[in-house]
Each structure stands twice: as C-alpha cells, then as structure tokens.
C-alpha cells in the first residue's frame, strides 16, 4: 500500500517532468533549423553590413574588408538608385494589391452566395495560376506582351484599336502588376472564402429574419467578419510586393523599360553577384527588410485605428 503510493507519486512526478520537457523536445527540430537557416543568416547579414570593401589603386586583386560601422547604411540613405527602386515597387504595389484583393474579396463573396453556379469550376480556374511557378507565369505573360506573339495585340489590331506597347515605360508597371494579380487572386480568394465559411449560420439566419438583402449582408456582416483575414492577406501582399524580383528579371529580356536595378531586390542581387559587393548588398537587404516592417506595421496600425473608431 505504502510502497504503491510512493511509487505512484514518483510516477506522477516523473510524468509531469516528462510533460514539461515534451514541448521543448517537440520544438527542438524546428528550433534548430530555424536558428541555423533563419536567425543566423539575419544576424550574419547585419554583421556583414557593418563592413566595407576597399580596393587597391587599380581595383585589381582581392579587396580588403574593414569595419566601418554604419557607413554602408548612410550610403544607402544617400543612394538614389535605392529610392527609385523602392518608389517603383511602391507604385507597383499601389496598383497590384488593391486590384488583386478587391477582386479576391468580390469573388469570395460571390462564391459564398447560393445563387452562383459552377462554383467549383470558378474556384479551380481562379486557383490554377497559383500552380504556375512565377518564372513560368512571367514567361507566359511575356509572350502575351511581346508584340511578336501577343494575342492581346492581335485581338486589338483585329478590332482596329491600334498596337499597344505593353512593354513600354508607361505600361510596364501595369504589365508586371497584372502577372501578380493573375497569379495570386485565386489564392487570396480561397483564404477569404475560408474565412467566410467559418462564419456561423446563425448570424445569417438572424440577418435574413431582419430582412437583410444580399448586399447588406455582405457589407454589414461578411466583410467586417473577414476583416482580420483581409488585413493578413494585405500584409502578405505588401511583403511580396517589396521583394519583387522574378517577374522583372524574366521580362528584362524583352523590355528595355526594366533595368538591372529596377527593384531594390534586383539591385541587391546585382550588387552582390554582379559587383561582388556583398557588404553593400547586405545593407540593402537589411534596409529592404526594415522598409517591409515599416509598411507592414504601418498598415497594421492604420487598420487597427480604423477598427477602433
């Protein structure tokens, strides 16, 4: 009796200890990989950004690297190429994000009503571009923009609407934005749609009893309830936007309107691998991350304030 009581006590204690250690053990594989391939690179980028390369007189031979504090950052702050790149992606995002999320919200709301038919087909059609690698998407749309192949130009010419230059300096931002709209609208639709599906049917019943129309239901019940989802998708879109890289890199081959330094990410890439200046590239990457945080959190603050009032 006594011994069995003592036994059960130690048993319980060891079990509790085991339960205490369990979450750490379960997290260990992820934590290890996360530290090695997420935290460490970020710290390394921070460290690298504090050094500058110095080349001897003719610029030949291996450059020496010296600690220089924040001088790379001061250089980036004065670097018009960086600002122009940020300006371009901000303009691109201002076109792309509202178009894409507006379409996605509309589509999700329509899919959530009972009257729309062929829902499954529409959902799959919208989601299909997500299966296309962005490089392939850019190549594909490149064929649609390239005057030698473009079905868009062919159709417009057939209709007597002239020959648009979809790769020209004025159109290129929209042409780039279109690729992302095409690729990500369906993905965002599904996320918003999932949010709509999670709304309990009781709310709809109550609204219907009160004589709510479909549009009123969308405006006063559905959109406010999926607002957190919309905020989340906006933040992910902001992050994606500021990193714009693949599409301009691919379209650069057929458009003179895209330079090597068209976006900050391209600029960092060419600085690192074209000019072999990893230190300046590290500073560019860190500042780009900083700009991303500023925009993401700025948007979050803004939407929280709008939610409060």
């Amino acid at each position, binding site marked *: 009796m006594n011994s069995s009581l003592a036994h059960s006590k130690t048993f319980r204690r060891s079990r509790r200890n085991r339960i205490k250690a369990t979450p750490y053990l379960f997290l260990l594989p*992820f934590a290890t990989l996360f530290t*090695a391939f997420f935290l460490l690179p970020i710290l390394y980028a921070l460290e*690298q950004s504090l050094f500058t390369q110095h080349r001897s007189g003719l610029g030949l031979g291996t450059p020496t690297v010296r600690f220089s504090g924040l001088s790379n950052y001061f250089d980036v702050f004065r670097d018009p190429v960086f600002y122009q790149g940020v300006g371009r992606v901000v303009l691109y995002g201002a076109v792309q994000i509202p178009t894409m999320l507006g379409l996605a919200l509309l589509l999700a709301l329509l899919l959530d009503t009972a009257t729309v038919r062929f829902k499954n087909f529409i959902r799959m059609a919208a989601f299909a571009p997500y299966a296309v690698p962005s490089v392939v998407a850019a190549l594909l749309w490149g064929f649609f923009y390239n005057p030698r192949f473009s079905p868009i130009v062919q159709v417009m010419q057939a209709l007597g609407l002239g020959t648009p230059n979809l790769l020209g300096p004025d159109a290129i931002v929209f042409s780039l934005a279109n690729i992302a709209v095409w690729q990500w609208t369906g993905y965002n639709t599904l996320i918003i749609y999932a949010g709509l599906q999670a709304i309990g049917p009781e709310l709809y019943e109550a609204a219907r009893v009160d004589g709510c129309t479909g549009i009123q239901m969308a405006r006063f019940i559905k959109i406010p309830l999926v607002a957190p989802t919309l905020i989340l998708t906006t933040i992910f879109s902001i992050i994606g936007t*500021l990193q714009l890289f693949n599409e301009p890199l691919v379209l650069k*081959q057929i458009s003179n309107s895209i330079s090597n330094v068209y976006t900050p990410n391209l600029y960092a890439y060419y600085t690192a691998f074209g000019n072999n200046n990893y230190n300046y590239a590290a500073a560019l990457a860190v500042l780009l991350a900083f700009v991303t945080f500023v925009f993401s959190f700025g948007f979050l603050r803004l939407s929280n304030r709008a939610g409060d009032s």
Partner: protein
Amino acid sequence: MSVRAARVTAPRRSNRRLKLKPSSVLIAVFLFVLSMYFLAPLYWLVVSSTKTLEDLFGTPGLWVGKTLNFGQNLERLFTYNGGIYLRWLGNTFLYAGVSAVVATGVATLGGYALAKFRFRGRNLAFSLILGAILVPNTALVLPLYLLMSRLGLTDTAWAVLLPSFVSPFGVYLARVYSAASVPDELLDAARVDGSSELRTFLTVVLPVLAPALVTIFMFQFVAVWNNFFLPLVMLSSETNFPVTVGLQTWNVGIPSGAQPVLINLIVTGSFVAVVPLLVGFLLLQRYWAGGLTLGSVKG
C-alpha cells in the same frame, strides 16, 4: 465541409433559381470573363506547346497552328543538350518532395507543441516564428549564400534543401489546426492510459491532424517547386538547376545566342513544368478547400 455546404445550399436553391434577375446575369458574365482571364494564359500554353516554331510566329496565338507538333516538341525538349530538361525536372521533384516531407514533420511537431502545451518561452517562440514570416527573402538568401559557401555547400542540393526544411508558415498552420481540432480531453485520456507523449502524438494526434498535414505538405511542395530566388543564388552548375532556373537560362539565351529554337523549348518546357502541379491540384482539391476551412475540421 460537405455537411455545411448541404445545409446552406439545399433550402435556398429551390426558391432562388427561378427568378433570373438582371443583376445575376451581370454576375454570371463577370464570373465568366474572370474565369477566362485566369485560364487564357494556360490555354495559350497548351495550344502553343503543340505548334512548330513557324506557327508560333505565324498563326494567331489563341488558335491552333497548321501542324500538330506536340510529339516532336516533347522529344526535342527531352533530348536537347543531353536531356538536361529531364534532369531539371528530376531535381525539382527531389527538392520539392524532400523539403515538403521534412518541413511538414518538423512544423507539425512544433505547431502542436505550441498549441497544446503551456511552457516558458512559448509566446516568445511563437512571436519569433510569426515575425519570421514577415522577413523578406533577400535578407535571408544573400547571407545564406555566404554561410553556405563557408560550409562548402553552395552548388549542392543541400544549399536548396536545408533552408527549405524551415516553414514558419507551416508551424503557424499546425498550431492553428492543433488548437482547433485536438481536444484536451483526448490528450488527457491518452495520458491517463499511460501513453507516452510521443506515442500519443503519433497514434492519437497525427490522425486528427491528417488534413492539416496534407495542407502543410502541399503549401511547402508548391513553394519549393516554384522557388526561384534561392536556387538561382545557390546553384551554378546546370545539372543542379530546378526547372525554374533552367527555363530562365534558356530565356536569357534567346536574344544573345540568337537561338529561336529556345522559344519552342521554353514554351513546351513551361507546359511540362506546370502539368504536375495542376494535376495534383485537381486530385487533392478537397484538401485545399478542406484544409483552408478551419471550421470544417471540427466535424
């Protein structure tokens, strides 16, 4: 999912569909046009992959060419440059498959721990992981390249695989699903029965989380399959490239090398690169829908 769908659609359908309002015609037209927009480039890709080079230049983009050349296009794609495209395809399957399996396992363990255990540092860990989702790729990939080159791992599969084992988004998903679908009573019952935590996880928790596992796997598989920046930076030998990087090297080759044959190869190569994921999407449709609908896991 199906229960809810049935509940919502069944009573409404019968009385609504009889009245055909102008607004619903407008909506139908809008949805039709939008669907065409999403499908047109894929349709173009299918049509164009059957064309000869002359037809690509000489026939309307949205209509079939004069000669059906799909077989020859495929043959040329798979034999060009010693069959390099097949190598790229194999690499892509390897990178995406291995990364997705490992990332799913690691993320599920972590997400479950974050959802179902109270422990010191839990909130900090979760905030760090959430913050990581916000970190732009560039800030990671450039320093990763330097770290990998110190370890002598650049231009090896490991340089692409190791960073792809980490899926903060997967941990986030696993945490949300675990919180929503693994009842505490179930865990307590297993503990009272004397089941070890690992055994509980493997035999009780995993079956409940199965739909979430499929979702996390698919997201990571697609992410790695479509990844471009990481392999572009890490890899330099043609034989290590995934399809995305390989196609871009052909794309770069068009103007400089004056090789119009590359256009044919790019079109057919793009087609072949897209097919596996599209087929997978269709087959696993219910997991996408089911996985993204959190509420449905409960039933």
